[in-house]
């Protein structure tokens, strides 16, 4: 363990904890007052803070396991992290870092915060006890908590790269649903979330995963659709710029809200926690009443025609049997030979609103790709994404496969595979073409 000359007395520990909570809180208040932020800048600061709570809790768990540091046992702790230090740290590396980096050089802010840690942390024993390699943990937490918060805040403020922003929010919200909220509720019940997960029976795991995983996929697809088509994020203060009616929104108007409630139910089943059932209940109250009103008051006023048409066709909580497709589209196959099985399958299942065309060309080394062209140009797509968009017309499991194929990461892997696998066949066909 890291050597310390003097340990803090209990009274000084109490004082230090109060200062580490109230200091950043007051700093945020002062910066909010003097900065005269626009709503978007305030949203950026909030986003930076929201990122910190799951990131810090996760890295503190890692720090305990890897011996980087641990905190003095305290009844007001969540997974070994005292709540006051957690909140103070999240404010310090969240809104304070974001608001200061808007006025000062971002690198200077990051370096100053690291220097502050390097100076103060060795003097806070036994409030926090450092391991020999605590600086590795410090570097990791700066890399995965502080820097991403500043990046996502800057992107939010500039209103650019909505898909990347949404990836951050997806990870962050996943962190709240799968870590922060259940860990807090179980801590309130006097239980440890990690122990609850470890001691859960196989049956509970199977039921929870069977319920939760498909809905997590639906939530991710819905958030992706917000970013891709709406050029916004699921955060209500940074919403899409248009009414999004595609992807999961073609079947249900509240896919992310439903996802959150169902995933939290799965967590309640997994942890056998009565308190955890309160979380989906509060989600349903919030989403069913306040969020529904919010949509009426904001989206319906800003985009009345599009919203009116959409909400008259798609219900908030009950999925449609057939997807709401308010567009016509063409899926162009460049190579009927290569894609014959897919083409035949799509032709058999062809739905209204989708026309399939063939534009055969001679085999070449240039990559030939599917093209989806829609009457709504925001939905135009190429390659695997085009196939995904076409599958959405079919509804049901085909649509789910379509959303999944279009997700960042999944799409890239699928594109890579469809590029690599046919190379050999293409080589054979090229040779045949040359022979002829």
């Amino acid at each position, binding site marked *: 363990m890291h050597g310390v000359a003097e340990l803090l007395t209990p009274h000084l520990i*109490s004082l230090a904890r109060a200062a580490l909570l109230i200091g950043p809180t007051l700093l945020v208040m002062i910066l909010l007052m003097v900065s*005269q932020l*626009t*709503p*978007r800048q305030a949203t950026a600061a909030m986003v930076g803070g929201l990122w910190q709570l799951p990131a810090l809790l996760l890295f503190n768990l890692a720090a305990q396991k890897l011996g980087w540091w641990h905190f003095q046992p305290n009844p007001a702790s969540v997974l070994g992290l005292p709540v006051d230090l957690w909140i103070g740290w999240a404010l310090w590396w969240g809104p304070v870092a974001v608001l200061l980096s808007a006025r000062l050089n971002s690198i200077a802010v990051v370096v100053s915060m690291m220097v502050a840690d390097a100076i103060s942390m060795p003097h806070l024993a036994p409030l926090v006890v450092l391991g020999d390699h605590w600086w590795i943990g410090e570097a990791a937490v700066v890399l995965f908590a502080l820097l991403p918060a500043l990046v996502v805040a800057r992107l939010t403020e500039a209103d650019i790269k909505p898909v990347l922003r949404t990836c951050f929010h997806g990870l962050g919200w996943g962190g709240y649903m799968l870590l922060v909220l259940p860990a*807090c509720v179980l801590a309130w019940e006097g239980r440890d979330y990690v122990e609850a997960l470890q001691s859960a029976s196989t049956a509970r795991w199977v039921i929870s995963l069977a319920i939760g995983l498909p809905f997590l996929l639906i939530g991710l697809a819905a958030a992706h659709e917000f970013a891709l088509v709406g050029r916004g994020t699921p955060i209500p203060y940074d919403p899409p710029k248009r009414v999004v009616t595609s992807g999961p929104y073609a079947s249900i108007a509240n896919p992310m809200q439903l996802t959150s409630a169902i995933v939290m139910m799965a967590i309640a089943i997994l942890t056998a926690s009565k308190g955890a059932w309160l979380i989906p209940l509060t989600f349903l109250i919030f989403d069913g009443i*306040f969020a529904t009103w919010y949509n009426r008051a904001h989206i319906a006023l800003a985009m009345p025609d599009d919203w009116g048409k959409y909400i008259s066709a798609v219900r908030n909580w009950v999925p449609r049997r057939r997807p709401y497709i308010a567009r016509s589209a063409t899926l162009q196959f460049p190579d009927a030979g290569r894609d014959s099985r897919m083409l035949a399958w799509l032709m058999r299942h062809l739905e209204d609103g989708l026309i399939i065309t063939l534009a055969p060309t001679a085999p070449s080394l240039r990559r030939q790709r599917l093209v989806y062209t829609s009457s709504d140009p925001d939905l135009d797509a190429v390659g695997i994404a085009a196939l995904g968009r076409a599958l959405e017309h079919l509804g049901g499991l085909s649509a789910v496969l379509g959303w999944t194929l279009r997700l960042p990461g999944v799409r890239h892997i699928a594109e890579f595979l469809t590029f690599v696998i046919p190379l050999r066949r293409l080589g054979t066909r090229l040779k045949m073409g040359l022979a002829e």
Partner: protein
Amino acid sequence: MGQANPDHHSARPDYPYGSAPLLPQWHDRWARGLSLLIMACAGYSTVVHVADWNIDGIALLIVLPALLGITLAFAPDPPSFVSRLAKRLTTAGCAVGALAGPWLAPLILGVPILLAASVAVGAIVDARRG
């Protein structure tokens, strides 16, 4: 991609909250009244608990909700009645939070109920106005 979309209309660029700076509403009667209420609750709670709690407990369970409530009270009011009511109820909730002691955590789960209540009150007021 990126071309004008004739079938759909985009919201204005600064949707949904505009681009005017968020200035504290120091002179608002509601903000001042709610802040006084919060300070009174925090002061009372401190007097009651000062003998039993450490300073870190007072900071977490009394000062933090009080500071959040005061910040929220002086934040600019949203234009719609329901949002304004939701903001004021949440601010008043911070005053209750400063009194709640260890029940502060479960009280946070009750915030959606306050928001739902503001929608219900808004609907009643709208109905009365016809």
